[in-house]
């Protein structure tokens, strides 16, 4: 995913701090799809994502006057979103309804999707939608912190350094969490391959 330009963000933040509410609207428009993906893949529920995202922007709007630009707006807003989502997940516990099943039609033209289904692999042998469903279930079996790292690295395409800034942990911690999460996902999916009915 392309990272937004920092200069544009700086200008929009300055305008918001000067009292221009339309500048913050532009930031909302710019960041809501990206943050939606982040929160959605962590919560696995559309309604929760919507509420959380509204709260994230409301909190950011209140706190933006205190934003001094030590980090980029991108890092700052992502930190707010991740921290609020992790707090929400702790409160929610295991009681949730998964709604991660709305795959966009654009997937059919995705180059990676075509490559994945063309070559001989376990993916081709299984029904893709079923596989995606199992992957989502596997994701939800990860701890919240591991899921956050997987979401940011694999789905959002963020580099390790950026993730470490957002989570305020070392890059080594990010890498070790990723390694552990990948192993976990691999085990869950292999289990599904061996017992597809379960």
């Amino acid at each position, binding site marked *: *995913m392309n990272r937004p330009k920092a200069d544009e963000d700086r200008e929009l933040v300055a305008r918001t701090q000067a*009292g221009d509410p339309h500048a913050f*609207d532009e930031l*909302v*428009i710019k960041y*809501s*799809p990206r943050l*939606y*993906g982040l929160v*959605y*893949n962590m919560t696995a529920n*559309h309604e929760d*994502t*919507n509420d959380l*995202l*509204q709260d994230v*922007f*409301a909190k950011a*709007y209140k706190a933006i*006057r205190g934003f001094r630009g030590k980090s980029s707006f991108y890092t700052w807003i992502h930190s707010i979103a991740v921290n609020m989502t992790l707090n929400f997940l702790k409160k929610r516990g295991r009681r949730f309804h998964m709604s*991660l*099943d*709305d*795959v*966009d039609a*654009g*997937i059919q033209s*995705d180059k*990676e*999707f075509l*490559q*994945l289904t063309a070559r001989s*692999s*376990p*993916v081709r*042998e299984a029904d893709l939608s079923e*596989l*995606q469903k199992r*992957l*989502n279930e596997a994701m939800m079996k990860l701890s919240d912190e591991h899921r956050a790292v*997987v979401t940011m690295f*694999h*789905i959002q*395409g963020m580099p390790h350094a950026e993730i470490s800034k957002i989570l305020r942990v070392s890059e080594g911690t990010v890498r070790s969490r990723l390694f552990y999460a*990948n192993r976990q*996902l*691999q085990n869950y*999916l*292999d289990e599904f*391959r061996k017992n597809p009915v379960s």
Partner: protein
Amino acid sequence: MDEFDDKEIATLLRLKRHEQPPPGYFEDFLHEFHRRQRDELLRQPLWRICLGRANEFMFRLNLSRLTSYPAAVAAVLVCAAIVSVRVYQEPQRANFAARQQTTFNLSAETEAGLSLASPVAARIFSTKPLRSSKSGHTHPRNSGTPPRYVLDSVPVSYEPTVRF
């Protein structure tokens, strides 16, 4: 049958980018955000709204920067204190100087009386400062007659303040 490797898992995860909200969601999102902001504003008590407005006003005046430099603020306060103390002490120093000059003139007058130096020069030198001093104008002795120094009398400051 092969096992899932890291690459395949990564690819599968990347495909999750295509999981999108219903069409038109992001267009409505901003309207929903504005609606919630307004609702929240209406739910707030009046004092909190006033506090928020005052905070905003202070922020626009950029007064918050002053609080971030406590050393500068402290320095300004110390300077102000020193200046005010000096201003307060200034008249006392003038009095002290006048008294010193009075003493000096007194000795000069005495010396002039005893020595053979020109009495005109001594008189000019000795009378002017006494006329300009504040106490000289207010004292009844100095009002009409030329100044006369009595060495064997009790100084004015030693006299009791209240007389019946």
